[in-house]
């Protein structure tokens, strides 16, 4: 069982053009910084990216957009990115906007082997167009399908050599869901520890979901909205 890779380049080496890739993170919090950098370096093109947000102009998925590596974004919120807006308006970039909870639950559905789920989000809105509506107990729900992604790039706080992961604070967000959902999950961790060091009761993502793992380097962890109070 060889899950450990030396770095992002090696772990992502075989991602082909045209792949559907899930990228963990909410805003710039908990994003796979090393994985994105490796994709940029590698120049993988025609990507369909499933990610709650699309980064900012010079960080996160914004770096992939700048290199025109993204064909389609599937996200819930894509503000704060001028290059994104330019490509969208010029028709270079395809965008599918879906409710955040639906995004999360469609990841979970894939991880749980459920082909579709029902959610009330979007009923009566344009999100419902072309979708099956079904009433349960007097309330309408949309049928939404599980995602089918080739790769997931997720970022955890700690991981062990069997692929078990622990996330920190709100950097957890979509990461454990995407880890469960993709065919091949590549996890980058701030600290890669020997097997046996993580408490089995505290593992958020069991190693069964993680095919490749490496210790990431030089995390910038950029803050999008610094808000503080005086001491």
């Amino acid at each position: 069982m060889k899950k450990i890779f030396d770095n992002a380049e090696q772990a992502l080496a075989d991602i082909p053009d045209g792949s559907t890739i899930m990228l963990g993170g909410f805003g710039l919090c908990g994003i796979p910084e090393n994985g994105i950098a490796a994709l940029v370096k590698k120049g993988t093109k025609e990507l369909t990216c499933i990610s709650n947000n699309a980064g900012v102009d010079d960080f996160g998925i914004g770096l992939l957009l700048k290199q025109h590596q993204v064909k389609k974004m599937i996200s819930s919120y894509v503000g704060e990115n001028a290059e994104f807006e330019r490509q969208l308006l010029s028709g270079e970039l395809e965008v599918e906007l879906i409710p955040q909870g639906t995004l999360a639950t469609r990841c979970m559905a894939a991880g749980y082997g459920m082909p579709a789920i029902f959610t009330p989000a979007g009923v009566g809105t344009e999100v419902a167009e072309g979708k099956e509506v079904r009433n349960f107990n007097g309330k309408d729900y949309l049928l939404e399908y599980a995602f089918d992604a080739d790769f997931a790039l997720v970022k955890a706080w700690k991981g062990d050599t069997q692929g078990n992961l622990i996330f920190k604070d709100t950097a957890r967000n979509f990461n454990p869901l995407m880890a469960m959902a993709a065919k091949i999950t590549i996890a980058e961790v701030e600290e890669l520890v020997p097997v046996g060091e993580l408490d089995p009761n505290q593992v958020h993502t069991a190693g069964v979901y993680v095919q490749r793992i490496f210790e990431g380097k030089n995390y910038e962890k950029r803050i999008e909205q610094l808000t503080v109070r005086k001491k």
Partner: protein
Amino acid sequence: MALDKFQIAQRIARELQDGFYVNLGIGIPTLVANYIPEGMEVVLQSENGLLGMGPFPEEGKEDADLINAGKQTITTLPGSAFFDSAMSFGMIRSGKINLTVLGAMEVSQDGDIANWKIPGKMVKGMGGAMDLVASAKNIIVAMMHTNPKGESKLLPECSLPLTGKRCVKKIVTELAVLEIKDGAFHLLERAPGVSVEEIKEKTAGKLTVEGQIPEMIF
């Protein structure tokens, strides 16, 4: 005199009850947290995966791994819990969040809400708003009564693309508190010194005024 945004937040805070779990949207709704009555326990949910959201961190103590749904740096409180986004929206969908407060561009007399998209403008996305409005048992909208052009935002029908249908229960504007039921805005309270006439004038949708309408007291 019309309420300022702090007074709108303050008025909404009166809807809180001890033990409530509450989701506050960006903007005025966020300010509601500043007016939680002393001694009342209210737990704030941030839909990116936290229950028990605390205030902004002290300068220099910010942590990039700890943000709210508005991407602002925040803190935890004793009793906080983190979870993933599916569980977060799971607890929203299953009705465990007692109150959701959010902003809106338009609300209809049937409780429809539009707050995510203006045709012709760059669309940033709905984020978690559609999930929240479709699921929450109790939704209060905090918004101005009119748009910058002076047009009413309380309409017979929304003109903008909807975020959700028949979901808003109450609206607090700078002029009034209104309840939505039976296809109409029911005027509950007026801002100090604001007349029923002015509210009528600025409400395009069906407005019901029954009896004396009390003034809010601050």
